[in-house]
């Protein structure tokens, strides 16, 4: 069904042979891609639901200025602690700020921190895992021991330690991201290393080496593409975790600072203080966090089942 679409002649083709080759590669690549997702939508309703949640969240973050009816930082005392109404869909907080707008803009913070921390953490873990598995010996030992040390603490404890070390403040969102990145690295490195160990043993790696390829070329060109499936799966899984960690850190006062709208921060201040008078202040951001993480978890879970059935752990 995709064949017609795939018959695109590459612009800078040098020979007929080249054209045929490119066309073939392009068609199989695109067709496989489309077929994979068509199959995914058909067979994995939970994963599709997760993907929809993620898309909604991405759109909300991208078009926050359009979607949000108010400026998330606009203080408006007459509306102080107003319950949900047509004017304020999710009510107003203790500064009269519109909760709905703050939730929408909060998705930007959550996604920024979540995406960056998860991408950097998983990529570092990927590199460390592959390097350890390929080089082996003392390098592997040192990396492993270091990862073991980091693994003997809960995520949040390491994140807090890093944030305390780097310092917190209004413009220190990079420190928050770093704090969430660090505990992700060893968890990814461990999984990647165990997948890479079996790939390193493959005959084609030995063949590449005997042809004269260097260690770096082998690791990046030949080992890494083959551990990409677990990498991708962990990337989505840790996105949810990272969003959760950002909320937890901000809730503790160690994450993002006012006036940046952040879901964790909304729970911290007014959410707790006015729990009885204005429960919507605590409900809305919590639902937002849960839906976001829920979306990424559902999607990541189904992606794992679809990409690599051997990785099923639960």
């Amino acid at each position, binding site marked *: 069904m995709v064949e017609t679409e795939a018959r695109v002649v590459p612009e800078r083709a040098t020979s007929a042979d080249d054209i045929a080759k490119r066309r073939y590669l392009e068609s199989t690549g695109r067709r496989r891609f489309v077929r994979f997702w068509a199959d995914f939508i058909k067979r994995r309703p939970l994963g599709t639901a997760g993907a929809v949640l993620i898309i909604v969240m991405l759109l909300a973050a991208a078009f926050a200025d359009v979607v949000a009816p108010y400026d998330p930082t606009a203080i408006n005392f007459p509306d102080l602690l107003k319950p949900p109404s047509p004017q304020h869909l999710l009510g107003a907080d203790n500064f009269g700020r519109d909760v709905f707008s703050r939730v929408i803009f909060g998705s930007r913070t959550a996604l920024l921190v979540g995406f960056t921390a998860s991408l950097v953490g998983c990529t570092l873990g990927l590199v460390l895992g592959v390097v350890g598995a390929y080089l082996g010996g003392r390098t592997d030992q040192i990396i492993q021991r270091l990862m073991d040390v980091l693994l003997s603490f809960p995520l949040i404890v390491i994140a807090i330690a890093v944030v305390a070390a780097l310092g917190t403040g209004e413009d220190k969102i990079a420190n928050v991201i770093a704090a969430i990145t660090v505990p992700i690295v060893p968890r990814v490195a461990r999984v990647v290393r165990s997948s890479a160990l079996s790939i390193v043993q493959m005959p084609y790696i030995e063949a590449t080496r005997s042809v004269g390829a260097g260690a770096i070329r082998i690791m990046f060109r030949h080992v890494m593409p083959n551990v990409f499936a677990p990498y991708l799966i962990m990337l989505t899984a840790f996105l949810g975790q990272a969003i959760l960690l950002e909320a937890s850190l901000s*809730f503790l006062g160690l994450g993002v600072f006012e006036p940046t709208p952040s879901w964790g921060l909304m729970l911290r201040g007014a959410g707790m203080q006015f729990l009885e008078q204005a429960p919507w202040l605590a409900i809305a951001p919590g639902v937002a966090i849960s839906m976001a993480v829920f979306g990424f978890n559902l999607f990541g879970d189904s992606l794992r089942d679809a990409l690599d059935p051997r990785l099923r752990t639960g």
Partner: protein
Amino acid sequence: MIPTLIGVAILTFVIMRAVPGDIVALRYAGSSVPQEIIDQERHILGLDKPMWAQFVDWMVSISHFDLGQSLWTGNSVVEEVEVRMPLSIELAVLATLFAVALAIPFGVVAAVKQDSWVDYAIRIFSIGGLAMPSFWIGIMMVLITLTFWGWAPPVVFTPLFEDPIANLAGLVLPAIAVGYRYSAVSMRMTRSTVLEVLREDYVRTARAKGLRETIVVVRHALRNALLPVVTVVSLEFAFLIGGLVVTEQVFNLNGIGKLLVDAVAHRDYPLIQALVLLLASVFVLVNFVVDMIYVVLDPRIRYS
């Protein structure tokens, strides 16, 4: 496991000292205290010695089972930990019990009814547990008990042996909030291992000889599926002791997690080092106990 602990000790030591600002600088931050007094203070606390000398001092005192004193409160580290440990352990135990009570039956049912609506519902329930921050579940539970029964958990912690009911009243909500979240992982683990075991030959044999389905599932399948579940549950238990920082904050509980965060904020080196070693030891110890439990659960495993 000793090398891991030594690694943890060295790493914490170096990292905490590499971080800018020590306790003296933090205490006098913003005030115009003369440099001599600051230097004097550092000298009293031994912070002016070179790093290797401080490390040797620390190692020597540890070998005498002396963990030193908190630089912030002046109390001995042992005292600081002693008051908080019972609470943290009790909360971890309660949360684990709740998690197991939820995870195993639900996991088994989800596996037996694989791909039915029951399975889907249970899976959504468990992924939901992973998605909701436990501190938010805590807040919501307080909100619910407050609006419907006008009851909120007590603000002050009562030790278990003083008044068990008041003690449980304070811990039941945080235990449920944390336990629900932690049940998710073990529930999924139970589901997948039971699924695997149900396809084994001996399960077919058990069915073929006419045993009732409950007996097949509980006695033949579940027993053999439990091994990985035990691992997950125990490792989570180890993490629960120091990792409940945020939940402790919500319920105003003075536990080990809060102590650690405060210690890091104050650059209270002896306390941080002691707590980090303690948490790492708990983790290593639990790992060891798990290995021992394996031998009991699976007679095929032997350690020489």
